[in-house]
């Protein structure tokens, strides 16, 4: 309840002078802009000038760059710079604030006690004989729900802590801790996941490649510096480089995943239809909340079934949807890469079959689009892909077969 107010206090500590002398700062800024002088980040107090400031201060001014989220606003960055040496909460001279902190601390103590109790209960149930606790199935179910409650309590203990919130917003959250995973999950689900879902459904990746998906992994795809927004058109020369995946999982522990990149839009003249093609396939890739990076170039050969093949669209052909799927392997199972390679060659890899056969669970997805551009010829040449000399064209429009009009209708 008092998170917001306390967080606000935290932000305001260092800039009381700024907010009080807002008008004078603005006057100073306008004067400075008139003189085309460089702007000072720390004196930013007007949202409209923030884009300008961001552009001007793209390189960090300080010798030791702060570990910040690049999406953080300039104003906040400026406040953070001023708050290098903040007054500890205990020493703040605000009576109401201290009273509120006492309530929050009492609540946290209570939650910690509950956690201890819950842990004890779980330990006792684990040791209990299954016949006493109503059979194996019942015991397992009960344990599961108790553990779930324990996780909830862990989050509840920390969720009202303003310092936790601050650390998360500063991008310093430790993803090994449940509270930061929880906050990151909430943030992802609020916007990024929705965008990804919209793109894959609108562009029919679902159901063309897989029948359905409920993503619970935040997947980012990068080509060096170029970050792939779901559904964007990526230049062929950019996607020629090997991508890097950032797969953020929000559940504790490491799991093995299969990464597959599928292009379902390879035109086939003979069948007058589209074929699927696998651009990349790797299995047994370990991913955990703290090690989300999957660099395609540096994956061990033992886990790569099909190395990166640059996506290309021939001249005149409709755009290709390049979809990347992160599929979770069942607990404690590894997939034989050689067998996988033999079983599923690049051409016409039907991902539905693979998912079914190996009981994989689609957990994360992203996509981009590819069209013919000036660089495509070179990419095709370098990758040894045939068809540079071919072009796709629409045939002249077909006409309906002539049908004689019924004479009795038209006298």
């Amino acid at each position, binding site marked *: 309840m008092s998170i917001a107010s306390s967080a606000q206090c935290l932000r305001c500590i260092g800039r009381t002078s700024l907010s009080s002398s807002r008008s004078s700062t603005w006057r100073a800024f306008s004067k400075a802009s008139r003189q085309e002088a460089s702007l000072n980040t720390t004196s930013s107090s007007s949202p409209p000038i923030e884009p300008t400031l961001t552009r001007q201060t793209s390189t960090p001014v300080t010798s030791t760059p702060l570990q910040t989220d690049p999406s953080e606003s300039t104003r906040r960055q400026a406040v953070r710079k001023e708050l290098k040496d903040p007054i500890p909460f205990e020493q703040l001279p605000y009576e109401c604030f201290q009273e509120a902190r006492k309530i929050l601390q009492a609540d946290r103590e209570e939650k910690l006690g509950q956690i201890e109790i819950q842990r004890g209960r779980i330990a006792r149930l684990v040791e209990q004989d299954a016949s006493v606790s109503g059979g194996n199935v019942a015991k397992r179910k009960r344990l599961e729900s108790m553990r779930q409650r324990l996780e909830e309590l862990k989050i509840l203990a920390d969720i009202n802590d303003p310092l936790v919130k601050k650390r998360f917003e500063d991008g310093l959250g430790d993803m090994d801790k449940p509270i930061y995973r929880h906050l990151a999950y909430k943030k992802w689900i609020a916007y990024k996941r929705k965008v990804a879902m919209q793109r894959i459904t609108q562009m*029919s990746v679902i*159901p*063309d*490649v897989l*029948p*359905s998906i409920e993503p619970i992994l935040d997947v980012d795809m990068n080509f060096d510096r170029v970050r792939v927004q779901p559904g964007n058109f990526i230049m062929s020369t950019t996607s020629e480089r090997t991508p890097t995946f950032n797969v953020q999982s929000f559940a504790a522990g490491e799991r093995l995943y299969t990464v597959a990149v599928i292009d379902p839009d390879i*035109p*086939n*003249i003979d069948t*007058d*239809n*589209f074929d699927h093609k696998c651009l990349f396939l790797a299995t047994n890739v370990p991913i955990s909340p703290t090690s989300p990076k999957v660099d395609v170039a540096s994956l061990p050969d033992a886990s790569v079934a099909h190395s990166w093949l640059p996506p290309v669209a021939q*001249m*005149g*052909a409709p755009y290709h949807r390049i979809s990347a799927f992160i599929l979770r392997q069942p607990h404690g199972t590894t997939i034989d890469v050689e067998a996988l390679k033999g079983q599923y060659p690049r051409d016409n890899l039907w991902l539905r079959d693979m998912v079914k056969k190996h009981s994989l669970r689609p957990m994360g997805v992203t996509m981009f689009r590819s069209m013919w551009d*000036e660089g495509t*010829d*070179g990419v095709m040449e370098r990758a040894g892909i045939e068809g*540079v*000399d*071919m*072009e*796709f*064209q*629409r*045939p002249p*429009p*077909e*006409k*309906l*077969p002539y049908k004689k009009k019924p004479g009795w209708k038209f006298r």
Partner: protein
Amino acid sequence: MWSKSLFSAPLRSIAGESLLRFQPCLRLLPISQVRNAAHAAEGRANGAKKGAGKRLGLKKGAEELVVPGVIIFRQRGSKWHPGENCAMGRDHTIYATEKGYVKYYRDPNRNPKKKYIGVVFERHWRLPVPVGEPRRRRLGMLAVPRESEGQVGSLSPLTPAGLDGEAAGLPGVAVAATSPEESSMGEGELAKRRRRKDYVVRESNWEIGRTAEKAGVTATKFVRKDRFRAWRRAAARHRRISETKSVGRKAKKGKQGKVKK
């Protein structure tokens, strides 16, 4: 008898002068009453008058063969919605985007209330397609060898090849296949002109549009409020027109005169 009673002495004494005068008039008035209309006879009341029929409705029935662009249903508002391989026009007309057979169907998974019109490639196929099944698609394109084989890779629509003065001066003029202008052109330029599908060798439209820019022609900026300039131009135009008209008239007169002579 009548006259007797009318002018009888006792009556006159009771009713006085006025009654005497009115008595015959009342009896002579016609027996009539006014009835106002209870129901409007014209206008909105009897239902709007129907205009000409708009020839709406079904143009292609279920399982009829259609090709891309064929109108399947004309309607006011979206009584029917476009389903598979169909699209909706500006006036809610449903038309086909693929060759196939028309299907009228409902799709409870998409919207339980809407009715859809779709086109399937095979007559026996059914709509709607079950949830999670991949779309049935058709390439509908031809693979042809790329023209201007030598220029593959160097062809860039964004970098116009330098036009010589002659070509810039005569934009959009169709030239014969072996014109001197063409023979003087480079290979790439020629190939670019010949890429057009209608075999008319001419510059592309975007190049024509850039002609003025290349020739350095600039127009004076139009100022809406500059009425003096507008008046001057209008006056000049009127003068020009009147001059040409007078020239025409003189010529005609001269001709007629000659004939007469």
